């Protein structure tokens, strides 16, 4: 109880300094949470595009970005013909720009693709997809920001397309994308006879290992990965994750420096008090516990505040129409735990030098000269 009083009394006595330190940790945690959650959300959405009604992705071996992957139509047909395969859908990804919109994702898909067949059509008829080479279907958000309606013609990149429908999906990338037939996309992106990936659904999930082995033997330039395996290993995702944690880590490091500064000031202004504790039997460990306790309190309180601020910020982002579907504000409990632990560790690391300094204070000198 006295331990707690010693900790809280000091924090209360220097409340502005404590609050600044707490705010530093809070904003660091909020920044980390926001960046990591947004990027993980984005990764999740991109993964879900690939795993739409499938469990295996086939793409060109050793490419760092799926936009540069080339899988031949012939390979797609051979894979689709395998006995273990329920269906194999080639998908061609491309990025174009239109006036005022520098990035629009295009999906070249077959008429049987789950994106076309299972999405909610807000306008148009799914049966009319692929009737004409210049027909496109827009995601709801794309239709909104391109101000296009069914029946209208619109310029996308170097070509003009006829909008035959608008569909709604839960995926931000798809919702902001343009769907065209695979052959149209191949022509438009000058990738005749190829697709970016093949999404494969098997009759029996237990056949995945055998299927992967078959692909490896028959198509040495291709690789087949399960969805989860792909999400873990895809270099772009790894770079994004590493970037997110690095940015968040830098924020937390700054917060930690704030705590360190606060704790150093705290110790320097309490040398006499620490000497009194020593004279009254406090061990080095107990002195250290008081200093680390203060730091832990600031860190945990700051982290809690940061989680709250970060959650509110993510919710606010979700309400911005331009980001609709791109931001998944769901904060995973594990991420919360990791962020809390990191904040605590940062705070404790920040208190390391001050604690060592406090433990080394010689009571006799502090009491004589203070």
């Amino acid at each position, binding site marked *: 109880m*006295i331990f707690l*009083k*010693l900790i809280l*009394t000091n924090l209360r006595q220097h409340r502005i300094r404590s609050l600044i330190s707490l705010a530093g940790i809070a904003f660091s945690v909020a920044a980390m949470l926001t960046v990591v959650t947004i990027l993980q959300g984005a990764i999740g959405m991109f993964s879900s595009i690939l795993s739409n009604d499938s469990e295996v992705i086939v793409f060109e071996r050793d490419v760092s970005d799926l936009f540069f992957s080339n899988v031949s139509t012939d390979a797609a047909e051979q894979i689709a013909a395998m006995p273990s395969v329920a269906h194999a859908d080639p998908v061609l990804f491309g990025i174009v720009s239109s006036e005022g919109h520098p990035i629009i994702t295009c999906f070249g898909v077959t008429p049987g693709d789950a994106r076309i067949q299972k999405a909610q059509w807000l306008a148009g008829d799914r049966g009319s997809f692929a009737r004409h080479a210049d027909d496109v279907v827009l995601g709801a958000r794309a239709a909104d920001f391109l101000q296009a309606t069914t029946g209208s013609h619109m310029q996308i990149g170097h070509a003009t397309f006829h909008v035959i429908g608008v569909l709604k999906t839960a995926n931000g990338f798809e919702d902001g994308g343009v769907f065209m037939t695979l052959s149209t996309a191949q022509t438009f992106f000058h990738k005749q006879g190829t697709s970016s990936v093949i999404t494969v659904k098997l009759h029996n999930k237990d056949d995945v290992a055998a299927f992967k082995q078959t692909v490896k033997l028959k198509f040495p330039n291709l690789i087949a990965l399960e969805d989860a395996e792909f999400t873990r290993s895809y270099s772009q995702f790894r770079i994004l994750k590493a970037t997110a944690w690095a940015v968040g880590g830098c924020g937390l490091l700054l917060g930690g420096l704030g705590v360190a500064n606060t704790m150093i000031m705290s110790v320097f202004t309490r040398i*006499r008090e620490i000497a*009194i504790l020593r004279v009254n039997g406090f061990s080095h460990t*107990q002195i250290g516990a008081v200093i680390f306790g203060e730091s832990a309190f600031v860190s945990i309180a700051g982290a809690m505040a940061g989680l709250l601020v970060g959650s509110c910020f993510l919710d606010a982002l979700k309400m911005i129409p331009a980001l609709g579907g791109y931001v998944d504000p769901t904060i995973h409990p594990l991420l919360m735990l990791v962020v809390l632990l990191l904040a605590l560790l940062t705070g404790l690391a920040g208190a390391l030098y001050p604690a060592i300094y406090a433990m080394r204070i*010689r009571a006799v000198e502090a009491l004589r000269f203070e």
Partner: protein
Amino acid sequence: MRSTAEYIERRKTVLRAENVWKSYDEGAVAVLKGVDCEISEGQTVALCGASGCGKSTLLHMFGGLDTPEKGRIFVNGAPVNRKRELVHLLRHEIGFVFQLHNLIPNLTLADNCLIPTVAAGIDRRIAKERLEELAERTGLSHRLGHRIQKLSGGERQRTALCRAMMNRPRIVLADEPTGSLDGDSSNMVFELLLDLVATEGATLLMATHDRALAARCDRLVEMHDGKIREHAHAG
């Protein structure tokens, strides 16, 4: 009044300094120059001498707060050095009272007094009972919940006495315990100190300038020029 010789013969030596040397400023200021001193169990001893003669330094060495450059310090027969458990010494064997009360200003009187019990891991209930007992004896029962800033100088020093006695130390080291108080408060605090030490059966070693107070101790040890010049009977 019993003689020093009687004490030494009949009682165990609890504090002993053997040829203790200490200097400051890299040897420029020699404070202790071969001090030899023995204090027996249960004695009240006044350590007198001019400012800077080394009284406080000797006191701090007995409490393990400072170390001699040469010579040895023994507490309860065991040498005080780095190998010895200094924390145990401060928690259970020695209670300090300083000229300045050295209380933590933002804690209450009760919290300040409980600090040694927290350090020693004494049961909270037992600690509170002990606090109530000491507060009663020192007339501070009505001030237990008050912060130190709200107390008078005499009350602060009485609080320091309570804190020093909380863990029932066998030795009390008092460094000018009444030096910052006026006459009445000084007498009151000193009476309390003698009373507490007597009833607890503790040994008191007190550095003081006040000859009148020193005269009321069992022994008077005079320090001069870094040495014990005489062991005089007080009173």
